[in-house]
């Protein structure tokens, strides 16, 4: 894992002791308290997930959040974006601003539209000033560079009306991971204000597409959840499709036509090596990880008939899970790993089925108009996203029992949903009619907040990984 260089800060008062090389997991401790009175602690973020309905979030739209540039105590050179810690502080605030803006729940105002603040003000906000600008919430932070180059980033959330501090966190990062500190800050604000689990500090694997419709080059690529740190993994010599990040981000399983035929490979990000998932005799496709990363589901066609198999992520023999005439394909585990939702045309057209993880008790759950394809179980367990094919292709959600179907998008061809780590947002790809151009989009569970992600080239087959530790 490459996350070892990231540490939630333990206490700013003891900065010298913060050099914690190789720390594998985030640690949490208090930053110095601000001079503002602490607000009452909120109820802990719920762990139960949404049940049936989706909250009307329109009232959140008026929540104005001011995010001035993060000041630094002494501006020194840094390898992070900006070149010095003063410029970096503005970039940090920009990332926080963009995360919160793109989420759709908030109306943040970023550092480019706000006056700067002094370093001492980070813990002693000028509440009267911010009240005068109609800010309801205030995110202030700072950045410092240690002699070894490591960055310390502090993040405070204040309720302007109450004049109180709601929450604070600090992070220690290597310069090349400075954006993660900003994402952690945005996650803190988002979680504290929405009661939902965080998701900004996460990554996406996808397929980068270039070239004309009949000579499309398709490369495996990765990026942060906001599109930054983009990187191509494959060079496009072989068509690559349908990637999925392993839960620990160490591997990507995907389909490649590397040797002329569609086969699933496990690509190791650290070593750059890849291997076949199985030496099966037929083409293999539609790979998926189990939530614990120990198993891979895949589909294999034998004599034109496609069934779903499970194999250990380490390799070895496969277990066949479906055994019916027709096309059984895809598959997505429930978060507890006990069940699998998948797609089958055994009844004549693509529909969604659920089975136990061992393949037993297969039953259809989609009984509404049109076809239902590419089901993906929410990380919260409460919803299944899928491609609803009824004339056009739309992204839709339903309960795990097939009830309460809701279309979230309305375009010519939207397909292949993937969930944000907190189960509140769905990414998918949209294909333009005739041109065949593709792009990754996301929509929240209300269906109201929809936007296109910025990618260097056309993009499809997004796969959202979990929140980084």
């Amino acid at each position: 894992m490459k996350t070892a260089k990231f540490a939630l800060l333990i206490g700013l008062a003891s900065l010298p002791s913060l050099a914690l090389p190789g720390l594998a997991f985030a640690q949490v401790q208090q930053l110095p308290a601000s001079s503002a009175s602490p607000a009452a602690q909120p109820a802990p973020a719920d762990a139960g997930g949404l049940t049936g309905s989706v909250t009307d979030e329109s009232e959140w739209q008026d929540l104005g959040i001011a995010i001035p540039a993060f000041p630094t105590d002494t501006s020194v050179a840094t390898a992070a974006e900006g070149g010095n810690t003063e410029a970096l502080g503005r970039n940090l605030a920009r990332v926080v601003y963009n995360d919160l803006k793109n989420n759709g729940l908030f109306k943040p105002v970023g550092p480019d539209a706000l006056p700067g603040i002094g370093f001492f003000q980070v813990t002693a906000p000028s509440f009267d000033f911010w009240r005068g600008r109609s800010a309801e919430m205030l995110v202030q932070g700072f950045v410092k560079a240690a002699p070894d180059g490591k960055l310390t980033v502090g993040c405070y959330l204040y309720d302007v009306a109450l004049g109180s501090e709601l929450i604070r966190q600090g992070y220690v990062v290597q310069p090349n991971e400075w954006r993660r500190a900003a994402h952690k800050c945005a996650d803190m604000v988002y979680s504290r204000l929405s009661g939902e689990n965080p998701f900004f500090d996460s990554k996406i694997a996808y397929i980068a597409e270039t070239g004309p419709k009949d000579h499309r080059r398709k490369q495996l690529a990765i990026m942060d959840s906001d599109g930054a740190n983009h990187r191509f993994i494959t060079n496009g010599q072989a068509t690559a499709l349908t990637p999925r990040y392993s839960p620990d981000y160490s591997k990507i399983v995907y389909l490649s036509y590397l040797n002329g035929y569609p086969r699933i490979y496990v690509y190791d990000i650290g070593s750059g090596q890849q291997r076949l998932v199985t030496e099966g005799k037929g083409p293999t496709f539609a790979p998926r990880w189990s939530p614990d990363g120990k198993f891979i589901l895949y589909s294999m066609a034998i004599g034109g008939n496609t069934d779903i198999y499970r194999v250990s992520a380490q390799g070895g023999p496969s277990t066949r899970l479906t055994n019916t005439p027709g096309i059984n394909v895809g598959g997505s585990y429930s978060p507890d790993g006990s069940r699998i939702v998948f797609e089958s045309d055994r009844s004549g057209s693509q529909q969604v089925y659920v089975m136990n993880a061992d393949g037993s008790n297969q039953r259809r759950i989609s009984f509404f108009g049109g076809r239902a394809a590419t089901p993906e179980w929410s990380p919260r367990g409460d919803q299944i996203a899928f491609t609803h094919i009824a004339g056009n292709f739309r992204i839709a959600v339903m309960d795990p029992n097939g009830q309460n179907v809701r279309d979230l998008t309305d375009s010519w061809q939207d397909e292949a949903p993937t969930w944000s780590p907190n189960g509140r947002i769905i990414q998918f790809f949209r294909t333009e009619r005739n041109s065949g151009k593709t792009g990754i989009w996301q929509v929240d569970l209300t269906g109201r907040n929809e936007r296109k992600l910025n990618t260097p080239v056309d993009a499809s087959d997004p796969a959202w990984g979990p929140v980084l530790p």
Partner: protein
Amino acid sequence: MPKLTSKLPILLLVGTSLSLAACAKKPPKELPPQPTATSTTTEPSGQPVGPTPGSQADFLASVLADTIHFDTDRYNVDTESQGILQSQAQWLSRYPGKMVTLEGHADERGTRDYNIALGERRANAAKNYLVSLGVDASRITVVSYGKERPIALGSDEASWAKNRRAVTVTVQ
């Protein structure tokens, strides 16, 4: 989809195939780098002689068509496709050393994973019919490209009908 519309592209393809006597098809093992149009790739050939017996050009000049088509979400080999495959089987009987690859395709109006399975199913249906005509199954390799390699580029019924296909390519 109505039968008449699904037939039209076949007739067009027959004409195309016959006119491309010098058409060069790469065997699938060389295909992955870039998608190759199925029967529109031409190589300049100033030689007025006929195609080399047993070559891909000879195959295209000898059979009714290298491509059969399917209705939406279907994989059955209809009467016209049977005639095409029969002409291919006759050619294969003349050149018993020749191997072929059957490429299965789907139109863009389907989800990616399903279309890979559907292309596989269509190519296998064509293979099974060739085998029923006496072609040894070991001479036929199947590969599905799903919706990844369209030949007709529009987003309309006519284009989709052309793209729902199985193409027989000789291995040279």
